[in-house]
Every structure is written in C-alpha cells, then in structure tokens.
C-alpha cells in the first residue's frame, strides 16, 4: 500500500475496517485498552512527578533538620569539650596566674586537644583576655556578636565567620567556682562536616559564605564533584534563596538554602542542600519502565485475545455469509452447518438453515408452477417454448425439422358457462390425456398453453417428409376428437381447431414458429375446417382481420354503416308486411362491403353486439319514419349467438324502444338454430324475456341445424323461416319440396307463421303460395333496399299491388326486373 498516496492509504484502511468486523473489534478493544493505559500512564506519571517533587522537597526539609541536628550535636560535643577545658584545674590555675602568654599556650594546647580552630578566654563582660591561633582583630566581630546576645543560651553553637572561614562557636563559662570568665571555642565548619552530612542523607551540601552584602557568595566547601562545584560557584548569587532549581553538569538539582548565620553587616553563612532530581526520580523511572513493559505485555495479550475472540465471532459469520452466498447463487441443497453453537450465532445459523429449507421448498414449488400446468400435469407454455427453442437449436445443427401443432377447443367457453368450471376442468384434463395417448413419438411433447389451448411439439423430423408428417399427426389428433367424451354421465361432443407450422419452412425462430402455428389454428377455426398448415397468405388474412376490428370501430363511429331493408310479402295478397333489416358497410376504400366480409369476424370477436345494437336502433328509427309515412310493417332484426348470451340485451332493446317511441310488436327478432343450440338454457331465458317484452321471435335458417320441432315447441317463437337452400332447390328437388311442405305443415300445426327465404322466381312464389306458406322474401320481389329508399319502394309496390289486384306476382316480378 506504500505506493498509494496518504489519502489513498487512509481510504484503503477505512474500507478494510468497514469490511472486516474482526478488525474493528480488535481495533476497538486495543484502542480502549491503549486509551486506559495512556490515561493511567499519564496519571501515574503526574503522580510520580508530584511525588518525586514532594519527596525532594521533603528530603530537603529533612536535610535541613539533619543539618541543624548535626550542627547541634557538634555544638554539644564542642560544648562538652570546652566545658571540660573550662573546668580543668590546671587551666583554671593558669588563668588564675593572669599570665597572658601562659593562658594563650594553655588555650592553644587545649583547643588542639578537642580540635578547636579558635580558642579564646573572655572575661565576664566578653572582653578578650587571651586567644590562641587567632588575633584579636579577627575575633572582634564574634565578640561583638556575643556581647549583643549575651547570656542567650540558644546562641550556643552559632556559626560565624572568622577570616572568611566559617566556624561554629561555643561559649562556656569558666567558674572558680563562681563565674570568672568565658571560654570561647570555634570549630571549623568545612569539608568533614559536609561529608558527615552527606553520609547521613542523600543530599549534597555546599557551604556558601560572603563577607558582606556586596561581596559575592563563595563556595568554601562542597560534597559535589569538582566539576559541579565549579559550575555551582558560577551561580553563586542564589545561595540565599530558600529553595531553587539548579542545572549542574551532572544533572538537575533541587536546592534549599539554609541560613546558618546572617549578620547585620551582610556577612553570612549558608548551607546549600542539594538533591539530585535524577537520583530522586530514578526509582520511579524504574517503576515507569515496569509499567511500560506491563502495558506492552497487556497490549500483546489483549490483542491476541481480541483477535481470537473476533475470529471466534467472525469465522462462523463468514461461513454463514458464504452459505448465504451459495443460497443466493441458487444452491439450496448444501446444509449450512454451524447450528451446534448455542449462542446468537448458532441461532442465526438455525434461522439460515430454516430459511434454506423453506426457500428450497418454495423454489421447487415455483419451478413447478413455472414449467408445469397444475391442472393437466402437462408442461406449460414456458416449458413448451423452451423445448421448441432447444429443438430448433438441435434442428439447426443437425438439419432436422421441427413442427408445432397448436389446437384450440371449439365452444369451450360455453361448456364452462353451461356445465360449470369444474366440468370444464375435467374436460381439459380429458383432452390432455387424449392428446398424450395419441402423441406421439419419443421426444414429442404435449403441452397446455393456457385456457383451452394445447400444443404438440414434433421434434427431430426428417426434412424430406416433414410437412406430411406434421399433417398426418395433426390429422390423427383431429380424428381423436371425433369420438365423444363421456364425463360424469355427460356426453360431450368435442371439436377443436388445429394449426401447424414447421421449422425451417415457416419460421427460423421459436416465437415466430409458435405465432405461425397459432395463426394457422385461428384460420382453421374461422374456416371451420380440419388442420391447417401455416401459409403466408393466412397470415396476411389474419392481419387483415386484425385491422378489420379497428376499422369496424371506426366505421361505427364515422357512420360508414348502412341499413338495408329487404321486404317481406304476404304470399296470399302480395302485400308488404315486413322487412328484414340488413347491414352493409360503405368502406371508404373497398367500397360497399357485403355482410360476409365482416359479420363472421364480428361474431368471432364479439363486436357483433355493437353492430346488432346499431342495426336495432337504426331499424327503430326507420320504422318510425315509415310508420309516420303510412308504411306499416314489422321489421326483422337478426340476433347472433353472442346477442342471445347477453343477459342485458332485453333491457338494452327496451331502452331503445322507449327512446324512439316504438312498440316491441314492431320488431321480429330472428335467431338461428345454431345460436340457440350453443347454450340452449341461456338462450331460452333470453328469448322468454324478449317475448315477454312483446317482440315477435323467429327461427332463422330453419332446417340447417339439428333442432327438433319438439324442442322448438318449447321456445316462445312466433315464426319459422325456412332456409333458402331448401327454397332455391324446391322446384328441382322433390325431397326439398317435401321438406318445405312438411315444415310448413308442422309449423302451422304449432301455430307458427312460416316465412320462406330465397324466393327468386315466380315459380317458387307460386309453389309456396300453393303450400300455404305465409310470407316470402327474395330477389324475385326485391333485393335489399337502402333504408332511406324503402318508403319510395313501398309506395311504388303498393301502387302496383293495388293496380294488379289479385293478379299473379309473376307479372309484377317481370315489371320489376
């Protein structure tokens, strides 16, 4: 890290700390320990310092007492010596002799005996009688001092200067036996005394003297080494102070001046007691070193301990993190471990393990939901798509073909609606089973794509026969649906629309392939045919269809739809009795479009309901116009399957009737057989309500479905419309004629009016009239007429009709065409 800039290093350290819990724990503990140690070290150091200084101060104080004690003791000894001398009979005899020379020699002798530097005999008034070793002048200051403090016992042993030297003086009386004089003895205060002092205490002592106030202090004796002594002499102005700090060559000293004497003339003697700070602090230094060593040791031990503790905490955490990482990567199978611990980390491990197990379970469930259809147990769309994807990849590599057959049950919604969803589900299961039975080779896959949509994948097909293979399989599956399915006592007639697409012919990728198969399937459904193989043209048609829906919406909103009316005439009188409302689309590009171009599509998409409502409203408006113009007819409107299934249809119609002030009896609603049969129950309910409202009801295209007259009997219908296919062939085909006849008879038997469609010639007209058919509708009378022109046509027809009277319609027809 050393190459990093300082800021970078700090940043890196911070990052490392942020990442490593154990590093933070260790650092925290060490930091705390160091802080505590530092604080105690500072406190101890301060205490030591204070103690050392106090101890030095105490040492110096003690030193002073020791010094004074030594001096006192000296004085006592001296006093004893002097006293002995003073009491010596020989000495007294000599003194009594009054011989000065003798006395001096005796003083000298005795002084020497007890080591006195000064020995003198004073009279009772402290006048010098005799002295040894010292002349009278030198002693004069001493005598002056003594005379000032005469008789004051406390001054015994006082230190005074004689000839620049310090002496300790004692004065003892000489009695013979009454006081006859004084013996003064002076003992030098010098090196031996200081040495004695030094031996008694850890202090150094210097003796400082000065002759008078102006003269400098002079060191006369010292226990200091000579170097230090010299240095001290240079600082000799300080000797009078009571306490001071000295910096000498051999270290720092604390010093205390002890004044031994101070005369009015300024001469003074002081002892300077000195304590080496280094020496005083030395034992504490040892203590501090010990403490420092202890700190170092405790930091090491603590560091080691906290590293181990942190490891103990973080290692299992790291393991758990790694385990969680594995979980994140989707590995739910490896147990985590570490649950043996009973502490919080153990709990954490337990929680993780629990999570792993439940996530694994959920994952399995999700996978199931994601790739399998829970109802049929077949693969779902996702898995199917993946399989197709794989198959295409293999196909690309091995030059093999892949086919997808897609199928959609017809009218499954109605099964669901009528028989219930449970039944619908059973049916879907049955379909799945049936498909699985029919399918297929190894590697083929049946899937439910959703709703009633299934798909079969045929993978790895020989390209030479791929299309025929797909066709044959689709055909086989289609066949399988022709057998009825029996479910819970219900026999269901199933049908399905099949579409197929083959890679590489129809698509090069999975989505396009599936899309094309679906397009083909819808095409099959529209056409109502068997399996349809994808073809680009279908696609175009289907896309056309898609755009058709939006165009239809546009048409509805922009008045592109046109209402046409085709007249219905009474066969017996050729009188106009009604008209069928028909829809045309005035397309802005493609021109007028016939119903076949868009009605089936509208029925398929449900848009037919919008169209029905539009037609009904237009018809109502038109009826009102016609009615006001004196044309009284019943307008027929076609209802689709989806209309019948719309339970709100009656209300909607009723609302429109009210809006346009038209009676329900003005309408005849035409329903195809198949529309009823898709959901007979619901259809019946709707029809009954419509009938209840007063609408006439008519069965359209009768004869094309399977409905029986017995069933029809239960319907509230008023009219039956014979499909034009029978009417058109009636003249040539006797069977058809027979059907028409019997139908008319039966209908009349049931009390229904019979209407024939597709009357295209006079022959048919005549025939139907002979068969007692009630009404006719067809090109022979009129093509569908744009509604606005219908009034004109009606008045024209009425004019001709009244002119013709009971004449045959054939004539009329001729005139019309």
């Amino acid at each position, binding site marked *: 890290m050393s190459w990093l800039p300082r800021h970078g290093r700090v940043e890196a350290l911070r990052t490392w700390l942020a990442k490593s819990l154990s590093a933070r724990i260790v650092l925290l503990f060490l930091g705390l320990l160091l802080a505590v140690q530092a604080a105690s070290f500072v406190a101890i150091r301060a205490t030591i310092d204070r103690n050392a200084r106090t101890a030095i101060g105490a040492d110096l104080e003690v030193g002073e007492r020791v010094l004074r004690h030594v001096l006192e003791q000296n004085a006592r000894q001296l006093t004893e010596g002097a006293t002995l001398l003073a*009491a010596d*009979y020989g000495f*007294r*005899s000599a*003194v*009594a002799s009054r011989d000065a020379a003798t006395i001096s020699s005796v003083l000298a002798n005795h002084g020497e005996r007890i080591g006195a530097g000064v020995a003198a005999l004073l009279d*009772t008034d402290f006048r010098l009688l005799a002295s040894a070793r010292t002349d009278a002048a030198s002693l004069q200051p001493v005598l002056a001092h003594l005379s000032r403090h005469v008789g004051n016992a406390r001054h015994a042993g006082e230190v005074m200067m004689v000839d620049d030297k310090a002496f300790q003086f004692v004065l003892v009386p000489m*009695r*013979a*036996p*009454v*006081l*006859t004089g004084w013996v003064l003895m002076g003992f030098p205060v010098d090196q031996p005394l200081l040495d004695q002092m030094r031996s008694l205490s850890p202090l150094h002592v210097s003796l400082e003297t000065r002759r008078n106030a102006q003269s400098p202090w002079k060191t006369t004796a010292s226990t200091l080494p000579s170097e230090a002594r010299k240095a001290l002499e240079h600082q000799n102005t300080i000797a009078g102070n009571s306490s001071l700090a000295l910096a000498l060559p051999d270290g720092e000293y604390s010093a205390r001046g002890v004044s031994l004497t101070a005369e009015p003339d300024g001469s003074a003697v002081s002892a300077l007691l000195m304590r080496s700070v280094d020496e005083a602090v030395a034992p504490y230094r040892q203590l501090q070193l010990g403490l420092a060593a202890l700190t170092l040791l405790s930091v090491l031990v603590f560091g080691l301990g906290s590293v181990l503790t942190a490891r103990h905490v973080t290692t299992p955490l790291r393991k758990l993190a790694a385990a969680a990482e594995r979980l994140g990567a989707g590995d739910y199978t490896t147990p985590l471990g570490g649950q043996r611990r009973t502490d919080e980390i153990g709990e954490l491990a337990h929680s993780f393990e629990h999570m792993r197990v439940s996530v694994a379970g959920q994952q399995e469930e999700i996978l199931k939901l994601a790739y399998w259809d829970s109802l049929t147990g077949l693969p779902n769309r996702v898995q199917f798509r993946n399989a197709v994807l794989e198959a295409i990849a293999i196909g690309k590599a091995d030059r093999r073909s892949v086919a997808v057959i897609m199928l959609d049950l017809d009218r499954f919604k109605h099964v669901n609606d009528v028989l219930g969803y449970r039944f619908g589900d059973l049916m879907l299961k049955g379909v799945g089973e049936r498909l699985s039975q029919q399918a297929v080779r190894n590697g083929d896959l049946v899937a439910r794509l959703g709703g009633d949509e299934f798909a079969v994948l045929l993978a790895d097909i020989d390209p030479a026969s791929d299309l025929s293979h797909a066709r044959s399989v689709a055909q086989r599956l289609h066949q399988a649906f022709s057998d009825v399915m029996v479910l819970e006592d219900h026999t269901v007639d199933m049908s399905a629309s099949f579409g197929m697409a083959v890679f590489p012919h129809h698509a090069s990728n999975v989505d396009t392939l599936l899309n094309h198969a679906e397009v083909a399937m819808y095409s099959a459904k529209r056409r109502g045919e068997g399996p349809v193989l994808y073809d680009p043209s279908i696609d175009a048609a289907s896309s056309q269809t898609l755009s058709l829906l939006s165009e239809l919406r546009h048409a509805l909103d922009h008045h592109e739809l046109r209402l046409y009316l085709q007249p219905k005439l009474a066969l017996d009188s050729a009188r106009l009795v009604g008209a069928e409302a028909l829809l045309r689309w005035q397309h802005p590009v493609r021109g007028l479009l016939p119903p076949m171009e868009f009605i089936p599509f509208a029925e398929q998409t449900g848009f037919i309901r919008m169209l029905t409502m539009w037609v009904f409203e237009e018809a109502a408006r038109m009826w009102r116009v016609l009615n006001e113009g004196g044309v009284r007819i019943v307008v027929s409107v076609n209802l689709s399957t989806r209309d019948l299934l719309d339970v709100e249809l009656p209300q909607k119609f009723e609302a429109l009737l009210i809006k346009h002030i038209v009676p329900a009896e003005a309408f005849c609603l035409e329903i195809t057989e198949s529309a009823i049969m898709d959901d007979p129950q619901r259809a019946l309910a709707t029809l009954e309500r419509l009938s209840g409202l007063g609408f006439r009801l008519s069965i359209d295209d009768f004869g094309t479905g399977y409905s029986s007259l017995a069933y029809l009997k239960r319907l509230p219908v008023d009219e039956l419309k014979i499909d034009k296919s029978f009417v058109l062939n009636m003249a040539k085909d006797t069977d058809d004629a027979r059907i028409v006849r019997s139908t008319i008879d039966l209908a009349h038997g049931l009390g229904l009016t019979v209407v024939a469609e597709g009357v295209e010639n006079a022959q048919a007209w005549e025939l139907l009239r002979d068969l007692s058919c009630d009404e006719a509708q067809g090109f022979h009378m009129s093509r569908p007429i744009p509604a606005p022109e219908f009034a004109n046509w009606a008045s024209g027809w009425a004019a001709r009709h009244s002119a013709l009277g009971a004449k045959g319609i054939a004539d009329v027809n001729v005139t019309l065409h």
Partner: protein
Amino acid sequence: MPSRLVAFTLLSSALCAQAASLAVTVIDDAGKPLPGAVVMLEPASGKLPTKPMAQVDIGQSKRQFTPQITVVTVGTPVNFPNFDTVRHHVYSFSPIKPFELKLYAGVPNAPIVFDKPGTAVLGCNIHDRMAAWVVVVDTPHHARTAADGQVRLDNVPAGSYRLRAWHQAVPAGKEPAAEALTMAGTDMSAQIKLPASLP
C-alpha cells in the same frame, strides 16, 4: 552603672557625743531588702585596731561548704574540716589568698590564715557546685543584714568612714564604690543598693 543611692538620715540624738549606731538597709536592684549582705564601715583614714579572730571553721557537709559565707577579720586562721565521707579538694584562686587543700578527708593539718582584706572565693575541685566566700574585713564595724535587709552597727565613734556592702550575688568587678560617711555621735541610718541579682 554606679547608680547607687545612698541616703543619710540624721536621727536626732544630740546628747550622744562619743559613739553612735548606724542602721543600714541593703536593697537589691529591684528595691527589695537583701538579707545576708556584709556591711562594712571602714575609717576614711588610718586603721582601727582589729584583732584576728579565733580559728573559724568552714566545714564541708553534704557536699556543701557550711557556712557558705564567712566574715573574718584580717589574720584569722580558717580551718576546713571535712564532714563528708568523700574527699574534697578545696581551692582558692582569689588574689587575697590563693591556696589549695589537695584531696583530703577529716581535718587538714593546718588552718589557712587570711591575712589580707578582701574576698576569697573558695571552691572544690572535685565538686564544681560547691562554693564558699570568705570576706576578710579590716574593721571592727561589720555585720550581716538580717532577713529584712537591715543591720545595725553600734558604738561607731564619730568620724569619717567609708561604708561598703558585699553580697555574693554581686558579680565580680560590679561592686559599688564605698560611700563616704561621717558619723557625728548621733545615730544614723543609711541605705545601700547592690546590683545583686538573686536567683
């Protein structure tokens, strides 16, 4: 320091022509009567005839001289009988009579004759605390003050005298000078103040 006050009081005794008495009061510095002081009245000129006294004893008993103060006339022999069981070494460094009686027990062989007037201080070389004074007077008119500090000198003929007093408590050399006094056949009284400092 010669602040000594001497007061003379003339006692009216006109008929007494030949001899009279002198009453002397000795006081100390503080004005208190000083008992035991030796009062001496010496003729101003010439001498009065004095006879040596018979032998006087200054014994030593219980390591003390007894009596401590002895007043003798010039020429009086003084003996120093030792009544203690220990020996004594009696000495004097006084100029009027230096002598020593080296360690002895019992009675010394010969008495010491004090033949000069003055005061001799006696000590014992063995026992420093022992001290005695021998006041040698050269006049018959001497006496010691009683407890009230007073003494009466009788039969003092008229004439000029020097009046002195001595007390052991007066330090050596601090003795006041003698006062001149004229006795005129009448009783008189005098007061002497001594710079004595009694313990």
